[in-house]
């Protein structure tokens, strides 16, 4: 009887300790998850800002301005356009 009780006690202590460790593990992993999620949110924010930046740089008004002013590009006059037939379509 005593033997059985001791065995049960040992099992109980073992269970209790493993509960404590797994609990600790879970918390540690959770903190890590939180940190990663926070990071993901910051990247998300950064992505939005970069998208905004990209579309601001890519505004047709700006591109046209650069093409005309810096690169001195212009539309060809009708007389200088030659249409190439799309071939045997």
């Amino acid at each position, binding site marked *: 009887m005593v033997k059985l009780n001791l065995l049960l006690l040992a099992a109980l202590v073992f269970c209790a300790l493993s509960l404590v460790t797994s609990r600790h593990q*879970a*918390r540690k992993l*959770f*903190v890590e998850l*939180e940190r990663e999620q926070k990071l993901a949110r910051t990247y*998300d*924010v950064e992505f*939005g*800002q970069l*998208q*905004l930046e990209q*579309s*601001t740089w*890519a*505004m*047709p*008004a700006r591109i*046209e301005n650069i093409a005309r002013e810096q690169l001195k590009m212009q539309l060809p006059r*009708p*007389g200088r*356009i*030659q*249409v190439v037939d*799309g071939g045997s379509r």
Partner: protein
Amino acid sequence: MIAMSATRAATTPKLPRLRAPLLFGMLLALFVLLAARSLYLQWIDNAFLQEQGSSRYSRDLEVPAHRGRILDRFGEPLAISTPVKAIWAWPEKVEATPGQLQALAVALELPPSALAAKLDANDDFVYLKRAVAPEVAAGIAALGIKGVHDDDEYRRYYPGGEVMSHILGFTGDRDVGQEGIELAQQAWLGGTPGGRRVIINRRGEVVEDVANIRSPREGRDLALSIDSRLQYLAYRELRAAVELNKAKAGGLVILDARTGEILALANLPSYNPNNRTRVARERMRNRALTDIFEPGSTLKPFTIAAALEAGKVQPSSVIDTAPGTLTIGKATIHDAHREGVLTVEQVVQKSSNVGAAQIALSLPPERMWSTLSGAGFGAPLKSGFPGEVSGRLRPAKSWRPIEQATMAYGHGISVNLVQLARAYTIFATDGELKPVTLFKEAGPVAGPPVLKAETARAVRHMLEMVVMPGGTAPKAQVPGYRVAGKTGTAHKLEGGTYINKFVASFVGFAPASNPRLIIAVMIDEPSGGQYYGGSVAAPVFSSVMGAALRLLGVPTDAPLSSILPPAEAAEVQEET
């Protein structure tokens, strides 16, 4: 204790007999009281203590949700929300050295006097600055000024600025839509923040998720039918024309002739949605959808189509418009220039009011009404845009002959610009009225048939004659493409009478052999000397259409050399 008093009893004088039980009873009662109280707190009145306890370790956190982006048809972002910080202060609690205040003013880009004024305010709460970039806010937090705090908020940015502002609208406080698509699609775009309960440790780190109070619902992205390249093009050309003609306002719509999608919708005057302080309400109106006007001669093709459908005339039937006037009852209709005998085709080409009125009067009112109504006039567009108006088409029973005659050339009926552009889908297709939409469609969309295919083709041919020499709008020609369209120059109504102010318009489509785009241009009160649709609106149509077809890579259907330089083309001034 009891044992002690018992041993002492032998040596000391006898104590009162009841003392010991009494004390024992009292102490027992106190213990019972304590136990009862603790039981009470543990089982019955436990809310307060539990709350106090959990407030030491548990927190309810808000899970933020983004507002969805608005994209153009190719996925280019037109509106994006990014998190920013609102810097606020509790003036009474602010403790700062002059140096700190100086640094704060610099970081906020406020003059020190303005900052001091805000901090002197007699409020518990004052915003120092809103929509501050997160890096700037971090710098301010690093100053460590007591009583100065920051809050998370979202700010919406519109990279397109004034070019897109009328379609998109804008959001107000808390990123809630207030105008345009932002308002109309609030339910789709808006996110609902969620909440969760967590356990934190003494360092304030979250260590465990306890419960999900509410799942956040992220706002969804919305793809519009707008092509941002065409939109920019439309806005640029429209602005140039409005400035050149010193006009009060203007509108331009580009429709996809196959799907009815709105590819571009520009309005002037405009505003920059990123900086709306002191913008008049007036400038925010999306005139192409929320304002109606009398279309004038752009309505003539519908009269002709009704007559062709009814079998009253053929394209080559002859109408005598001499002497250039037509008297009905007390009213007289004028042609600005006498034309004499015209074919039905030429009535459209030269835009003769008398001719159109004669053709209209040969029709029963119901017949004409059903064609106009079939083309979508007088009925809501159902574009889903807030504040959209449907224009007015009175029931045929109430028409007097003079009204039927003036309606033939677009007076006594009102439309908005998008409605007018949509009506032309019946000529751009073989008689189908396409439903318009601001949202992207996957493929061609079928609409209800309104005209017989041969009627639509006959009118399309007449509309092509309009831009040819002898028509009212040679300036609408586009090199390399066959173009069809119709001018309009309408007197404006003010206080019930027609005044000498005009609305110049042009609606057309190209390539005429297989229409891809429909463009409607409207210039309100041009006052730069010119006011005819053929000279004010047609050039805008031509430049936008030419560039748009090139951008979309639409194959040419006419030789490039076919065009006449605009100055040499004979232009017929049209009626009003």
